[in-house]
């Protein structure tokens, strides 16, 4: 499941109504006018599916009896597509049998309102569905985010690393992985206190976020360790990014300890044409290079290319 950043402040969720009756659509539009939402309509199943995919609505109101595609079939297709699988769907139907309701819920509808509908009731059901959807999105996102730094957490990293390695292998694309470890972090904590240590972690996270590309995936790996997945990035480019991060960090003046510069050691594993290595092999290589950077005197980057035979040839940055 890919979670897009849930924008809970998005003040006007989009509701898409799919119904072949113009009377019903007109009525919905007028009756929902005072709600804080935007409203779009489709009069056929084909149009509804196309709009759902294109507009990514916060909620779909779906009629069952449509001229071209059955509403149940539309629901099935919505739930099969990655873009719309999470979108809540309220069935709005003239069919009132228990069997139809059971079918709708089985297929993934969140609610079922029979026509003719009471507009006050429909309004609160719409609000409830949107509210629940936003909270679920927020929960799913929170569960993947590190509380202190706001970066992705370890669980998210583990999953995305295997996804990205598989994707780059499939398309024979380059990919790089970097692991960062703040140098002598324990000393900062012990000397200046934990708030100072936290400030270093959050400060480094902001720097990391600022220096990378939109498609890169920055994670807090644990403690003072960070990991960065760089899809479609060859090892040489990954090295350039990491060196920029490293040299920027050493110049930062920290309000809590202006005379104590903070540095970071970095290990990179990269490939120009992602091969057949396991996530474990990638992590081991990056980790080994990180260790080499530490034992070589810290504040440096060691990188290596994962070649097809699985060997890696460490290089100093």
């Amino acid at each position, binding site marked *: 499941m890919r979670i897009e950043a849930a924008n809970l402040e998005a003040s006007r969720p989009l509701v898409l109504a799919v119904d072949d*009756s113009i*009377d019903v659509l007109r009525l919905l539009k*007028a009756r929902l006018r005072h709600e804080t939402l935007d409203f779009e309509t489709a009069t056929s199943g084909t149009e509804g599916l196309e709009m759902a995919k294109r507009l990514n609505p916060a909620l779909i109101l779906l*009629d069952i*009896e449509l001229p071209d595609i059955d509403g149940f079939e539309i629901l099935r297709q919505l739930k099969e597509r990655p873009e719309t699988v999470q979108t809540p769907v309220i069935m709005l139907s003239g069919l009132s049998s228990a069997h139809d309701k059971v079918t709708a819920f089985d297929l993934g509808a969140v609610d079922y309102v029979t*026509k*003719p509908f009471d507009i006050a009731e429909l309004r609160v059901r719409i609000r409830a569905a949107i509210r629940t959807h936003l909270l679920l999105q927020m929960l799913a996102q929170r569960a993947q985010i590190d509380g202190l730094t706001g970066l992705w957490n370890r669980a998210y990293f583990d999953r995305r690393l295997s996804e990205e390695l598989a994707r780059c292998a499939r398309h024979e694309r380059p990919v790089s992985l970097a692991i960062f470890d703040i140098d002598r972090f324990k000393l900062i904590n012990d000397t200046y206190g934990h708030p100072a240590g936290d400030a270093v972690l959050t400060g480094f996270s902001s720097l990391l976020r600022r220096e990378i590309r939109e498609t890169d995936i920055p994670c807090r790996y644990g403690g003072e360790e960070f990991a960065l997945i760089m899809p479609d990035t060859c090892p040489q480019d990954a090295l350039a990014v990491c060196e920029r991060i490293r040299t920027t960090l050493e110049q930062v003046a920290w309000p809590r300890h202006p005379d104590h510069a903070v540095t970071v050691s970095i290990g990179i594993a990269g490939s120009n044409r992602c091969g057949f290595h396991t996530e474990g092999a990638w992590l081991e290589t990056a980790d080994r290079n990180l260790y080499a950077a530490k034992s070589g005197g810290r504040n440096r980057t060691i990188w290596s290319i994962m070649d097809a035979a699985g060997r890696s040839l460490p290089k100093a940055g």
Partner: protein
Amino acid sequence: MEPPTRHINPLRSDLADDPDMVELLDFFVGELGERIASLQSHLNEQRLGDLRTLAHQLKGAAGGYGYPDLSRIAGTLEASITEGGPEPDPATVKHAVDALVDVCRRAIAGHHAA
């Protein structure tokens, strides 16, 4: 022979006094005349599928426009077709169409009287 002039008992929308509904009711009632014509031609030519679709749509919409009776009677027509087996009883269907046409006419009269 002239058809007997029938006294029409105007039917007013439950939502006729709702300022939000004024324009919507004009649209809805404005199209009822056409709906009556369609109901009658579908019946005359025994296009039961079209008749059912029209009844289904009226059932779904009319309640929201403040005409619960119209919804209910449209539902009766829909049921007379869907629950009438492979060949619904023509007399039952005709009776249901007449009842629906009647309530549509009452709605038109009630809207214009307001």
